[in-house]
């Protein structure tokens, strides 16, 4: 029995041939999607590129939480993300790092997160891109930690489905959504306004464990390569202020001290850059004011690409990230240096 008298009106359904409509609609939709998928594969998108984002990052962060105190974590921005080959790292050390670096994002909150995590006493590799690490803002994925802490069951499940579908469908790629492509049409921009055309487009492909490489088309397609170079123009600016350098070094020193108190270690790695990007970085954050001070005042070990001949002269098509091939060379080189200089790794190698 219901409440009171029934006052609802059954919704009417238009009297049309629904069977025919549904059949034609499905045929057209499948045809359009198949054509789109074909076109995206022609462009160079791959079905095994599962993409990246907060959901993928949270999976890795949970891995770190589950992997015991002796884990290796990589934090940083896109360079250490693209330029590290996890498989090679594992081959050389017997330990597979958890990749927590995020494109366009300041590494400091993630270093702080590990410093405050009492269960962590492992090794943190901090990829340094000076203009990203020495700034007040946190960048593109500033809310990644918040997302990880508050991720709902629905988001976690949705991420699994997304990952599953991405293995079969190349068109599932944030950078090649329909409206994203429309936004990137070359139109005359208003004075003083930067539009989606000028922003960073697709640069990478990502596999399981967030193993990320520079997208091959950046190497082979002159237009995309030039566009990527053009996008780095946005990173020009004033030199990093002394106040910012002081405060960043102080907070980093505190975080390192906390990690070391528990038996952990922190290593800074400066991946290569070249051309106008490197020139801009030298102007905004000269090595003597930033890198050298960082090492001197934190007492941490640092590996700078300029200090090792194996890490120089590598191929950076858009001046900021290594090709997949040269990322292996760079990884091998910096892991060799770590094996020679970092006690924490030497101890684990002896134990293994």
């Amino acid at each position, binding site marked *: 029995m219901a409440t*009171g*008298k029934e006052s609802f009106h059954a919704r009417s359904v238009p009297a*049309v*041939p629904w069977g025919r*409509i549904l059949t034609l*609609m499905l045929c057209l939709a499948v045809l359009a999607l198949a054509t789109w998928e074909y076109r995206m594969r022609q462009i160079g998108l791959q079905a095994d590129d599962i993409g990246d984002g907060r959901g993928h990052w949270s999976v890795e962060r949970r891995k770190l939480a589950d992997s015991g105190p002796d884990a290796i974590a990589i934090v940083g921005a896109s360079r250490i993300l693209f330029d590290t080959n996890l498989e090679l790292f594992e081959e050389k050390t017997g330990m597979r790092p958890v990749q927590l670096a995020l494109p366009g994002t300041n590494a400091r909150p993630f270093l702080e997160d590990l410093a405050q995590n009492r269960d962590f006493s492992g090794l943190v590799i901090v990829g340094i891109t000076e203009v990203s690490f020495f700034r007040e803002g946190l960048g593109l994925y500033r809310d990644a930690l918040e997302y990880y802490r508050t991720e709902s069951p629905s988001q976690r*499940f949705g991420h699994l489905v997304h990952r599953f579908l991405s293995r079969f469908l190349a068109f599932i790629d944030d950078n090649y959504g329909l409206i994203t492509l429309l936004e990137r049409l070359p139109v005359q921009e208003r004075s003083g306004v930067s539009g989606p055309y000028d922003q960073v487009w697709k640069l990478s492909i990502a596999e399981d464990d967030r193993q990320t490489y520079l997208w091959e088309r950046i190497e082979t397609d002159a237009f995309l390569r030039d566009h990527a170079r053009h996008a780095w123009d946005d990173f020009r600016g004033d030199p990093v202020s002394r106040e910012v350098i002081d405060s960043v070094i102080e907070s980093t020193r505190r975080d390192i001290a906390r990690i070391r108190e528990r038996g952990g270690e922190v290593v800074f790695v400066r991946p290569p850059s070249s051309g106008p990007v490197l020139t801009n970085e030298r102007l905004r954050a000269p090595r003597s004011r930033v890198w050298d001070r960082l090492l001197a005042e934190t007492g941490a070990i640092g590996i700078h690409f300029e200090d090792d001949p194996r890490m120089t002269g590598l191929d950076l098509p858009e001046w900021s990230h290594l090709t997949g091939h040269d990322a292996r060379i760079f990884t091998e080189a910096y892991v060799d240096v770590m094996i020679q200089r970092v006690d924490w790794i030497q101890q684990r190698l002896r134990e293994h």
Partner: protein
Amino acid sequence: MLFNSLTFVVFFAVVLGLHSLPLPWRAKKLNLLIASYLFYAAWNPPFVLLLWLSTLVDWFVARALHREQRQTWRRGLLMLSIAVNLGILGYFKYGDFLLENWQLLMTAVGIDFRPPPWSIVLPVGISFYTFQTMAYSLDVYLRRAEPSRSFVDFALFVTFFPQLVAGPIVRPTQLIPQFARPRRATSDQLTWGLGLMTLGLFQKVVIADSLLAPAADKVFGAPEGLVFTDAWLGTLAFSGQIFCDFAGYSTTAIGVALCLGFSLPDNFRFPYAAIGFSDFWRRWHISLSTWLRDYLYVPLGGNRKGALRTYANLLTTMLLGGLWHGASWNFVAWGGLHGLYLAAERWLVRRRAGRGSGASPVNRIFLGLLTYVLVNLTWVLFRAQDFPTAWRLLGAMTGIAEGGQAVLPTVNILFVITIIPLMLMTHWWMRDRSLETVVRGAPWWLTATLWAGMLFAIIVTQGAGDAFIYFQF
């Protein structure tokens, strides 16, 4: 769980499959009830407890209200229901706001009061289901309806997942009777329901989130003053975004329910074709405006106690309607402005009473556009994160503020100046029509092609899965 998520696609397929099995009706209802709790828990499991609390309190209160004849006791029972429902709402939604304003008041009178930070998460859709359950107790108290005899039916009424988190706010007499008898969608209902879901998701994923939100976000997020054009374009973009977001949700909800064999009422009727504000509120968020009319405006006296009291009632109703949207003075101001519009319109209509028949077509278009422009001014208060931002925008839109910067990229401008006129023309053309009549009159192949186009656009747009704006209310 969001309708525009892959999780929902899987969830809905399972629910639809279970609902189609040859099971007893009671088992199907229990399936729907469990699915509804899962739907809510998929966002934050502990908050299902709030749903249970609200369900149990109103279930027992309504039964007692029905049995009890003593007016004092009945009033006490109603107060208990209202206190529990508004207490939950107040604690989670308005606690921080009240504390913040209390602190400001104390500071103003020279008392240094520093409360600890109020870090309470707002349960999604709390305002919707609170109003829905309150309507149940109020209807029983007012003897408009009898309490449900089935606890499962009542629990499902509170929790029914298609409209749980953002409406339409359904009356007990609209939904509970539908749970009494077995329901399963016919193949036509199922197809039409899927079509409505596609339309709703197209509005949300493609138009609201992808085409209009970037312009609105840039303008309302600008730290400095804006030029006239950008301020207007950002506001127009928001007017389209919020319509497509919320109407998109409602259309999807109606489609989801229809696929399961249930009918939910319309929540929007092409509101930007409204001529005047009473017309606007008959077309915008209909389930809330009728709720406010029936449970607040009419009990306050409505228009039965003289002109001045009518204006005061309109203003009070809209101020509280504004506050329903969120714990912020911006929402109060938004509601207040709508209240003023309604009062002014009523005054004008009374003055013009008896002076000839309706307006000419040109005047109707002019009045429709004037209504839309004035509604846009209220959206500034609604969307701006604080009053300084709202004043800055309103200053730029009225030409009072000088200078200002341009922030909108050309492509965002192109999107806004293409979509907003199209939206207005569509609303105007559909003003006195329904979607059903238009589909009935259209060639079948055109319906199929448009449907395929929308489905394709949703899939290849790959929205970021942004939450619906009204979830926060």
